[in-house]
Each structure stands twice: as C-alpha cells, then as structure tokens.
C-alpha cells in the first residue's frame, strides 16, 4: 500500500476529485492548507501599504491505495491538476505499513 499526498490548486479540487472517482477511487481526505514551495509568496500593494503573501492557500489530498494502482492514480491526479503554470503543486508517495478498518478489524488492502 502507498500513501499519496498531493498539494494542488484549490480551484482544481473538483476536477481532481471527479477524475479519481472516475477510475474507482472513492476514499480520500481533503485538507485546506497554506504553504509555499518554489512558487514563493509575492508582494501585494493595497492602499499604499505593501505586504507579503508568503503562505498561499492550497488544498492537500491524502489517499492510500493498493500498490497495483499507484501509477494509474498518480497519472490521473497529475493530469487533472495540471494547468502548466507555476503553482500547480506536488505529489508525494510513501509506503504504508498497515491499514485497519476500525469497524470490523479488516486488515491490509481489504481495509482500504
């Protein structure tokens, strides 16, 4: 099992969600986050006062999938989230040791 964490543009959330549901992924966690990567914050001027927006609002998606589906999910996710501009976000993949369904104690991929 792998955990896929994706930081994406907020306005792409619906599209990404639909694309994932389209390939049969129906469980995910969505978090509103703020942060920055290489797309550093920028300066805004309003009323003559300059201030830096260093943390940009983004959306983070978390999902855990069976090993066999990782590539497909990443492709779908990246395809749906891409605008080709700076700030599209990143995807991180990590190993998951165990998954347990609290209700009935299913283990491993059966719990996903």
């Amino acid at each position, binding site marked *: 099992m792998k955990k896929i964490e994706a930081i994406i543009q*907020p306005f792409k959330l619906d599209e990404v969600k639909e694309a994932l549901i389209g390939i049969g992924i129906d469980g995910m966690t969505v978090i*509103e986050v*703020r942060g920055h990567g290489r797309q550093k914050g920028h300066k805004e*001027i309003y009323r003559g006062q300059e201030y830096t*927006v260093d943390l940009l*609002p983004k959306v983070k998606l978390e999902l855990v999938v069976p090993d066999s589906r990782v590539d497909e999910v990443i492709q779908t996710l990246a395809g749906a989230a891409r605008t080709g501009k700076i*700030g599209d976000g990143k995807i991180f993949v990590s190993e998951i040791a165990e998954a347990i369904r609290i209700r009935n104690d299913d283990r491993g991929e059966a719990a996903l």
Partner: protein
Amino acid sequence: MTGEKQRSSIAPETAWDEVRGRFLATGDAAGALEARSALVDEAVLAAWRRILAPACPGGMALLAVGGYGRRDLFPYSDVDLLFLVETPPAGERKQALAEFLRVLWDEGLRLSHSVRTPKECCGLDDNNVELSISLIDQRLLAGDRALYETFRRRWPRFLHSRRQDLTDHLCRLARERHAKYHGTFQHLEPDVKETPGGLRDLHLLEWLERLHAGTEDAPRPAGELGPARSFLSAVRCFLHFRAGRDDNRLSFEAQEELARQSFVPAGGPAALMRRYYLHARAVHRVAERTIDAYEGRHSTLFRDFRRWRSRLSNNEFTVIRERIYFRSPAAIPHDPELVLRLFEFAARHGIEVSPDAERRIREHLPAIENYFSESRPHWVALARIFKLPHAPVALRGMHETGVLAALLPEWKNVECLVVRDFYHRYTVDEHTLAAVEALADLRRPQQGRRANFAGLLSESPEPELPALALLLHDLGKAAADGNHTRHSLEIADRALERIQLPLRKRSHVLFLIEHHLDLSAAVTSRDLDDQAVIRNLAQMAGTVERLKDLVLITYADVSAVNPSAMSPWRMERLWRLYLAVHQELTRELETDRIHSAGASGEQAAFLEGFPRRYLRVHSAEEVAAHLELARRAQQRGAAVRVERRNGVYEVTVAASDRPRLFASLAGALAGFGLNILEAEAFSNAAGLALDVFDVEDPNRNLELNPAEVERLEWTLERVATGRLRARDLLQARPSRRRRRGAGIEPRVTLDNSASETATLIEVVAEDRPGLLYQLARTLSEAGCNIEVVLVETRAGKAIDVIYVTREGRKLPGADGEALREALLEAAAGR
C-alpha cells in the same frame, strides 16, 4: 431499531419490552419514564434487601437523586444513587456496598453513586456543586429513616443560606453549555438534552423554581412549557430506544426514522423538525429570561451598572434592570411605529426588550401587521436600525416577537426552515440572523485578516444596504427547485417595493442578492491568478463600491454557514480575490473608455472617451442632466449645478479642460468651507471635463443662506474659466485644522503598470479641509495633467485614486519619487 446493546435493568425482559412497545405505540414518554423508574426501584430495592440491609441494619439510607430522584428516568439514562451514612463505611459495610453496586452493574444498570454524611450533603463543595444540585431532586428509597430525617431538617436551611450561590452556579453552567452550542437552538442535528432549548434547560427552570419557591421573587411556574416537555421527552425516549444507549443526538437518520413512527403526525422530517424548533425556541426563550433575572443578584457592582443603565430611559421607554419597557403600551395600536422605535432604542443601546414589552407587542400583533401590510416608506426605520451598533439585538427581538414577519411577511417562509445539506448547521432564519451579526461584528475592533474586512465596512457609504441584502438573500430558500437566488430576487423585489426603498438603493440591494454566491464560488473553484477570471468578476461588479459590498456580504454569508466555515484559509482567498478585482477595476478606470464607434448624435459625442465607469454609476436622468450642462458649458466656457440630496450637496461642473482645473475647483469648494466626501473627474474625447463632487456643509452655510448657493455657482463658474484664482479664495479663510480620530499615516503609491498611457497615483491620508486642493495643486505644479480622479472619504480617511500624465505620457520613474515626496508632504499638511 438496532439491537439491545445493553440491558436497561434487571427487570424481566418481557416487562421492559412491554414498556418499549407501549411507548412506540403511543409516544407517551411520561408513562415510559415512570415505568422505568418503577422497574429500577424494584431492582435496587431487591438488591438492598438481599445485600445491604443485613450488613447495615442502621446508620445508612439509600436515596435516589437527580433524574432518578424525579422519577424522570429515560430508558438508558444513568441511575444516580446517594448513600447517606452516619460515618464513612469501613470493613464489612464497605464490602457489602461494593457488592451491592457490582450486582446492579452486572445486571445492566449504569450507576453513579456517592457516599455522604448529612453534614457533607449540607455543605457547599466548590468542586462538587453538582451533588448539591442533584440533591434538589432527592427521595428516600430505603434504610435508616431517622438518619434521613436528620438530613431533611438540615437541607432547607442549607438551601436557604446558599440559594444565590447555587443559582449563580446553575446559571453559569447553563451559559457555558449554551455557548458550547453557539447560543442557538437551531442546530440541524440537535442534542435534545444539551442544545439550548433542550431538556437540560427545562431542568434548569425546575431547579430555579424549587430554589426560589416561597420567596418573594419566585419564578412563575413554566406551565406553558408543558407541551414542549412532552415533545422533547418523547423524542429523547425514542432516541434511547432506537440506539439502545444514552444517545441524545437527533441526527438526520434519526429524524427520518422518528418521522415514520405512528405516534408522530404525518409530514415527514421537515414538519417534525419545525415542531422541534418551535418547542425548543419557547424553552430557550424562557430559560434565557430566567437566567437573566436570577444571575448575580447579590453583586453590587452589577446592580450599580444596571441602575446606571436605567438612566437611558426616555419619554417613550423605560429601562429597568437592563430591559426595555413601554411607558404607555396602550399607544401601540394608534402608533405602530412606536414598536419600531422600541427596537431602534434596543439597537442603539444594546439592551434587550423586556418580556413585558414582548407580551404587549404580541397582544397588538394584528394591528401591527395590519399597519405594516400597507406600502409605506418603512425602509427608513429599518435602515436606521441597521446603522446602529447593536442592530442584531434589535433584529433578534423583532424576529422573536413577530414584528419582523409583520414588516416582511416573506420572512415567514424561512422561519425554522431546514436546509438539509452537509454544510449548513442552522435553519435559514438563524443563518440569516447570524449573517447580519457577522457583518455587524465587523464594526468592533478586529485583528489580523478580519481587520481588512472591517476596513471595507467602514468605507461603505451606506452600510445598511449590505445588511438589508443579507436579510433578504435567502428568502427564496423555501422554493423547491434549488435555484434560490432567483426566487430570493423576486421576493426581495416585491418586499423592497412595499417598504418603498428608493430605486437607486433598491437596485444596489437587488444586485447584491443576485450575485451573493458569485465570489464564494470563485474563491473555491476559480484560478485567482487567471486574468480572465478577474476581468469577468470586475465586469460583474462594475464598480469598486459594489465590489466592496459584495465582498462584505460574502464574508458574512460564509461566516454564518457554521462556526468554522470562514476558515483563515477562506478568508485569505477571499481577500486576495478582492485585491485582484479591486486592482482590475482601478486599472479599468483609465483604460476602459467608452467608444461609441460609429454611433452618432449629441449624446454619443458627449460620452466618447469617458471611463466606462461613468455609465455604471449614473442613471439615464443624470446623464441627460450632464448633457444639458455640457451644452451650456459650450456656450459660456463652463456650467455649474448645485443640488441638495440626502443631506449632502452634489456639485457638478462641466467646463472645457485646462491645466489646474480640478485643483482650482477643489480649492474653491474648500474656500466655501465645504468638505469633499466624494469626487470624480474625467474628460471626454472632445476636451470637455466633467467634475462631480459630493460635499458636506458642516457649517450649514448653504442651508441657512440660500443666496450662498447662487454665489457658489457663480464663483465655481468663474474659477472654472480661470477668471478667479482659487488661491485668493482660500487665503480669505481662516486656516483651521480639525483632527478626527487617531492620526492616519499618509501613504502615497505610484504605479506605472496599471495603465498603458498614464501613471496611477493612490493617496491614503487623514481627511482635512482643503486636502484635495493641496494634492491637486502639488500635481499641477509638477506639470502633471490629471486624467481621471476618484475620491472617497469615510470616517475621516480620504482615499484618492488619480491618473496623471505629463506631456501625454507616463511619468518617468525618477520624477515619480520626487512627486511622491511632495504629495506625502501635502497629504501630511506640512
């Protein structure tokens, strides 16, 4: 019905099944509660006789306390026992006690127990006030009667001496509990015990009633709440039987199941919940009134404050103990406006209406409804209330007394209306009131990002209009087809016509309602870095003024969806959206000009080259009047019109454009002692300048001397044609500097990227007489030609947006810095 997870008592299963069956057939909760108390009594007494009675022949009594003491035992509620003892049990007695508890626990009772001597029972332990409160409902089950009598003798004395402490404690607990549920009973999935207006509030009322029984200010028994009690008890009973445990949350699934029960009137979950809210509202209202009446009575500071507030009384209303009373309630039918003045009074001082005044209003409600059903300019009173600092207090009072529904019968459509979606936590009426509160809250000092939104509200020229839009924005929610915006718009249009809101204001309010979802949709699902998105939104908003109000109602509407809906994340996105659209609208001012390409005629020629904003802010009548002015200007070089509207003077000048024109006009107005609130200036392709000033007349010079208006027109005409110098006019005036509020540090920005042909200068400074003249003169002296001006002054702060060119081009960067310095000095008044 899920399976039994836990047996409710040691009574035979059949007896328990019978209780449940009877309840589900009849919905009679009182019967079920009594039956369970009796079953538990049997079990407890049997165990007592078998285990404790032999071990403790004397010196111990068993008391039922709390809900069990009241014989108010819900199917899966805890059973509270108190062991009254002479001395703390030890040895064999202690073992017997443990055995007794274990047996009952094993047989399925969830017990909570305490062991106390009569003396301990009659002392107030700050860490365990709950024990004293549970003892209010005690009854003897078994054991040493003499010991029990000792307690019974001490108890009333104790209650009497600590009455106020217990009362304060109860009230504080209730307030904390209400705060936990955000002070509203209108949760979509309420906890029928704990939510405001739930069973806990009924208990509170009973406890206060018992505590103060026999005293001069004993509360009136809450007899009117009988139906609410039966209803809430039946719901809780059902929830317990449904879950097989102490579950009090009326979830959506539970609502559906309950609505299908035979003892519930037909109508489905929606009708059921409406009944729930009506009962909860009644309970909540009585509970709040009672808490207010009893809390903190022995604090002299509090009394003094109340006494001081009573000085606010006037010839129509009296303030007693922080509540408003009518002086002559009999006048209501002859003068229904008195009711609105009452709420205006509440909005001004933040004092709630007394129960007595509420009763009087309800008595006369038919007369009030009759009066308000006729079309009259009721908007004036409503706008006055919205402008006051405590408007939400008044609005809630109007809602609760039915006055709001009398004024806006459309309001009835959304009262206690449930929206079943994942996000909304409140019914539509509560959501609406919470939105108006969120907006009003921005008047108070705010921290962080909220301070930006508070700034927008302080700049809104008519803050009552976004509030009015919020009040009406969801009235169409009752419509079934899901397009509530369109229905709200239709309903609001009719309502606003009936309360005779003037056309210009009405179209602004309707605009806000029509677009109240646009910005929040953009925040969640649009790329805010995409210029096309921003341009579309700028086009939709049209002007900065409308954009600001739209941002405000979006902020308030989202904040009122649920307590965490306006997350810092959303707030950040909404603010960035505002900045981007604001910048686009400012840019457009200079770049987006009217080109009637091909269209001929006098009006087309007149409009050619004006910023597109001109047509967005001026009505057809105004354009016609300006055209007339332009005709006169062509003959005589300049033409001036001064008009009084809504307490301010609108001064319009048409003249052939020339250097220093704007500065001279601003100077001349300052020379007359007039303060410029708003100004816009631009010229068309033919070189005609049109300058519009909204000015206030703080010395009432124009109002008291009609001849001065003529002199002003005459002077402005001569200044516009260069026959009179503004500087001479100003020198004749004594220089007087006024300070309003805290000093605002002046700020000046120059931006060469906003437009292709001109430099954008933005000045923010503390307002003072002659400020605009000083700024404009500084620009003229630097050789700049003023292309477009937009000035706003609110709450002592002037925000000036000016586009300038020099010799038809932008200012070079190096000159810009020198000009910035000069403007800063002018703005600071040095």
